[in-house]
Each structure stands twice: as C-alpha cells, then as structure tokens.
C-alpha cells in the first residue's frame, strides 16, 4: 500500500497493464510528448515508446474509429479524451461502432477497448467543459460504464476495464486527480466491474452516490450523524452499467429510506434508474419517498458562486437525508 493521488493510481494501472500485455496501447490528444493534459500518462512514452503511446490530432471521431478497428483485430486500445465533453464528437464511434460490434457481427468480433478521460465539473471551465453525461452512455446496451470516486477504486477498476473484452466507458473525476488514498501496489490488485461498495455503514438512511459527489455524501453523513443522530449508509455503485443494485436494495431494506445523489442533471439521470429499481424491488420496505440530489437543471455556470450552487454539495444532501427521515 502507498498513499498516492488518483492521477498516480491511474498512471500505475496503465503502466502495469501495458507491461503485462503487449497488446495494450494508448492513444489520445497530448498523451505522449506532453505527458497527458492531466499528466495521467506521465512517463509512459519514455517506457513504452511512441509505437504504444500515440499522440492524436484534434479529431475525436477519427481516432475513436482507429481504436475500434484496432480492437477488432485483437489489440487492447485505451483511448483518452481530453474531457468527456469532447467525446461528444466521437459518440458515433462509441455508441454505433464499439457498443454494437459484438452484437452485429454475431459474436465474431470482441471489442476490448477502454475509453477514458476526465468527466464532470472542474473549476470554472464553463458550460461546455463541465458536464456529467454518464447516463447517456449507461443507457446503451453493449457498453460498460465505470465512474471511480477514489484513487484505490480508480486503479482497481481501470485495470479490470482494460482486461475486459467489452467496450468500457471510464469516467474520471476532473477534480479528483489530486485526491489521495492508500492504494495497493500489488500488480495483481483489481476491483471487479459491477460491484457496489458500502463506503460507510449506517442504519437510518441509504445514500447512493457515485463519482465526486461521494465526498459530499460522506461529509453529509458526518453532519447528520453529529447534528441529528441520523446514521447514514453511503453506497457507491462504482460501475453504473451493469450496476450492482442488490447491495443497494439490501441496504434500503435495512434503512427503509434512500437519497440518490449525482452530479448530472435530474431528468433521465442515473439516479432515476436507481429510484426505479428500488421502488420495484423494495416497495414494501420504503418509509418515505426516495429523495434525489442532482446538479441544477441549467447549463453549467461559469461564475464561481453559481458553480458552487450548481453542484450537489453536502448541505443539499444533509437536507435530503433529514427529509427522508422526517426530521425538520
């Protein structure tokens, strides 16, 4: 174990997987000579050479297509987008090519490709660079969608994503790159896709949350514990498709109340799906309507004060948890 940043944990995962399997290679804007826009690929060009760490032009759809073709002939490409907001230009390659290939070829082609890059809000980068679009990808059969919130999860899940034979959309938190956690340095360490983790145990309300808002939720759990005596259980599904809903259901059956949190917009968001699963599978266990805390229903503001208000901060989660527990 070593205390390391989320950025270095990802770097370690990339390095270990490229050492382990010569078919793994990386491509994207600025990943080589510049060492990555967020320095996730630092040192990889030096170790693996430009054959396996490929700088790409500003042409997301084009290099996504290259990656899909490479995966069809048996390589394991890792495609980095400078941000997931830019991947909108490549969505045809992700949704129409990568996600469909195994199905439309009748299983003749596997698609062992990982699409990764920063997602969500950063500091004042404006409406077109601050989006959390995970529900767009999670709605597509054929894709797997992962959104780690901690350094340990980032490393373990990225290694599993690279080893997976299906296309994985891997959403990193732009403001999480500098966050630190103890991370196993064992190169055999992985975290399986599709497994939720109880990040904090509790008895009175279940908070389901992924990506950066996990940290808001954990703060909120401390606040309601000390101020209201409410014991909150915090669960991070980590993989959004396929989601391990059973862990969430077990928790809701225990606590009878639930708050679902996400950085993205409420309408058709990830949380809407979680709420649907819970109401169907655990209806008779609910003691309160399921609350949701989401990003505000507007384009993302540039102004710092408004940006703060847009995000599902701890105070909003505290309010929702109290409401679910019929306090105040």
């Amino acid at each position, binding site marked *: 174990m070593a205390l390391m940043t989320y950025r270095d944990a990802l770097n370690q995962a990339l390095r270990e997987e490229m050492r382990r399997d010569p078919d793994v290679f990386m491509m994207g804007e600025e990943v080589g000579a510049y060492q990555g826009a967020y320095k996730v690929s630092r040192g990889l060009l030096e170790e693996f050479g430009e054959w396996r760490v490929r700088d790409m032009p500003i042409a997301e759809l084009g290099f996504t297509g290259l990656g899909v073709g490479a995966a069809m002939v048996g390589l394991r490409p890792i495609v980095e987008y400078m941000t997931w907001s830019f991947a909108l230009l490549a969505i045809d390659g992700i949704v129409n090519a990568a996600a469909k290939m195994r199905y439309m070829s009748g299983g003749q082609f596997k698609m062992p490709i990982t699409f990764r890059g920063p997602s969500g809000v950063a500091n004042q980068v404006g409406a077109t660079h601050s989006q959390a679009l995970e529900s767009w990808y999670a709605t597509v059969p054929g894709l797997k969608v992962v959104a780690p919130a901690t350094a340990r999860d980032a490393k373990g899940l990225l290694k599993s994503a690279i080893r997976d034979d299906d296309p994985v959309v891997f959403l990193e938190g732009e403001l999480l790159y500098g966050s630190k956690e103890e991370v196993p340095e064992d190169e055999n360490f992985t975290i399986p896709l599709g497994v939720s983790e109880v990040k904090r145990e509790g008895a009175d309300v279940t908070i389901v949350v992924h990506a950066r808002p996990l940290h808001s939720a954990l703060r909120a759990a401390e606040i309601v514990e000390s101020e209201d005596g409410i014991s909150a259980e915090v669960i991070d599904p980590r993989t959004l498709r396929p989601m391990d809903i059973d862990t969430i259901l077990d928790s809701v059956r225990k606590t009878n109340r639930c708050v679902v949190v996400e950085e993205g917009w409420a309408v058709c968001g990830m949380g809407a799906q979680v709420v649907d699963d819970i109401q169907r599978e655990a209806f*008779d266990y*609910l003691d*309160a309507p399921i609350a949701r805390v989401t990003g505000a229903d507007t384009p993302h503001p540039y102004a710092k004060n408004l940006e703060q208000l847009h995000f599902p901060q701890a105070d909003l989660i505290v309010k929702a948890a109290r409401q679910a527990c*019929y306090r105040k």
Partner: protein
Amino acid sequence: MATRIVMSKLSPTMEEGRVLHWVKKEGDPVEPGDVVVEVETDKATMEVEAMGAGVLRKILVEDGGTVPTGTLLGVVAAPDEDISAILAEAEAGAVAEATAATDGAAAVAAATPATAEAPATVSAAAVEVAVEPAHQPAGDGGRVKASPLAKRMARENGIRLEQLNGSGTGGRIIKRDIEAAVSGGVAATTVAAVGSEAPYQQVELSQIRKAIARNLVTSMGPIPHFFLTIEIDMNRALDLRAELNKSLEGSGAKIGVNEILIKTAAQALAEHPNVNVAFADDHIRRFTRVDVGVAVAVPDGLITPVLRNIGPKGLRQISAELRDMVDRARGKKLAPEEYYGATFTISNLGMYGIDEFTAVINPPAATIMAVGATVEKPVVVDGSVQVRKRMRVTLSCDHRAVDGAMGAEFLATFRDMLENPLRLVL
C-alpha cells in the same frame, strides 16, 4: 346503468365486514374488473371489483367502517345518472342480501359456498344491480396516507391505520407511528385503574377475534363436549420420520410430525367413519372423505386451513400442501373456502412445551384433537423401566354425534398406527 357495491357475505361465518380502504375515490372513473374497495371479512382481506362501468358516484361507508353483510357501500353510475332512489333505499336500510343474491349477482353466489366443498374463486366479489338513472352528489373519500413500509407493518401487527395519526409529511403514517402503536401507545387505549381493579388496555376486537368469539360460544355452550386422553409411544413414528427425511435429503422436501399425525388421523378415521361426522340438528352427516383442519396461530388470532381429501395423499404431498396453507394463513391470503369445513381438526401446542390440553370443537365438525409435546420419560416395558418418547393427545367429542366408546376405539387405532407406523402403508 347504476351498479351497487355491497358488503357481500364472503364466507359462511361472516356476519359483518369492515371497509379497509377505498381504492377508488368519489368521482374516479371505474371499469368493470377494477378493484374498487378492499374489505376485511372475519378471516381474510378481499378486493371488491366493479361489475359495471361509470364513475364511483357515492361512498356510503368510509374506510374503517364496520357494517353488516348486505349493507350498501357505494354506487357506481354514469356521471349524470340519478341515483337518489338507491341512496334513499340505502337510507331506509332496504338493501338486503337477498337483493344482491337475486339480481344477477352470479359472482357472489359462486363466491359464498354453502358448503366447503364448492370450489369457488373469490378474488372478486361485487354486486351488480340495475337501477334507473337520475342525478349527482359528490364528495371526497377520506384516504389514509401511509408509507408502503408502514402499511406492511400495520398488516403484520393487526393494526388499523385509520386509528393512527401520521407524523410524516402531510400526516403520512410512517414506521415510527406503527412502532409507537405496537409498543402500546396508540392502537390500544390505556384505561386508568378504578379502585382495586388492575389497570388494563382496551384493545379493539379485530374481525378475526370477533369471529372466534362468536363461533366458539356456539360450541362449548350448545355442544356437550367430552374429552378422551391417550398416551402414545412415538419412538417408531419418529424413527420413520427420520428415515423418510434422510431419503428426501437434497429434494427440498421435509416431513414434519404434523404431517404424520394428519395422515394417521385420516387412516384411523377411514376405519372409524362414525367419528368422521358432524351433528346437523335432525341428522348426522357422515363424511365420505377426510378433510383435516390444522389450527395455525396468526398475529391476531387463529385460523384453521383445511387439507382436503387426505385419504389418497402421501406424506410428501401433505407436507407441501400444509406448508403452502400455513404460509398463506400467516399472510392472511387464504380464501374462505380454504379454512371452512374440516371433518376433523388437529391443534398442536407441543412446540410450546404443553404436555396436554383440551381443545374447543370448531363447529360443524364433531371432533378436534389436541396434541401435546413429545417428551422423554420412564416407562415400564415388559417389566423393566425404559426411557421412551411419549406424546399425549386429547380428543374432544360432540356427544350428540360421538359416544365415548366410539371415540376411544378411534383413539386406540390412532395410537396403534403411530406405534406401528408401517400400518400407514397398508
């Protein structure tokens, strides 16, 4: 065309019913087959479906109201239809069961079997009576708001939601309200002690409790009971059970003592048909098959699901049926015909460590068998003392139909079969 929704007689022992919850509110459109209201009979909760289309024009008995069977609960009619005649009739108390039964109420007739044998489907029971059109009143039916969890907990604890005040948003009844009620605060009103009288809680009678009380005073009073007790050596029967269960390992099936008692009783009754009877005023009914009732404790009372025609059934089938019946009995999911009309009943309190007891006959049957715990005790066998597993059973008999010697002969056969369980395969 207006149709009436009436508190129908949904089981042979039902004299009154309680409106649990109106699913539809006044003014709601209604299609034939829609569940309009849930009613609680003396032993089960049933959904009443609409037989006609229109809107629910009038609710006459609100949630929680208890009324005699035959009472008009509500009226479904076209929005502009004149229903004043029906309402006036209800006011005058003129809606009788007879009306319901005659005016094309086939569904209800089928749903209220006069005897237990009639296999009826009772998922729906609404009454449809044609009346002439007229004009419209309105109002909003009071709806009890409760969380799904609270509703489930209330059901499991036999608590009536409409007695509670909800502490959740907008008066919603939530988990903590039910917990408070269960711990004694709300559902049961505490009455202060007067003089030397001990303080007590006044607990409202549930429908099932009322049914038990009503039915059993028709038993111990009018029926001349007598009791016969016999002690049975259970070693071989228990060995047989263990052996059977070993052979069933991995199949998911498991034979319990009750199944063996049910099977044995049926075999013994086949040899003593004069005990498989009911007294019916001017004649005795000697049943030609054995339907065994099994007393099951449920949260607010007791219910006796009936396993039909045990004679040809094997232990494994009896076991499966028993398990299903007990599960559904605990969930209050039994249809009325499933808990009526046993020709013989077994009540087993052995699991509570009761050595022996007497049971009150559940009419119309003429007998009931009370089974105590199987205990190890010293017994003299061929002049020496041995430790044996012994069980005491007591047969209550209706002396009008069964005499002492008849009951004793039956019990002797019952004992011999259990002590030589291979007789069961004969």
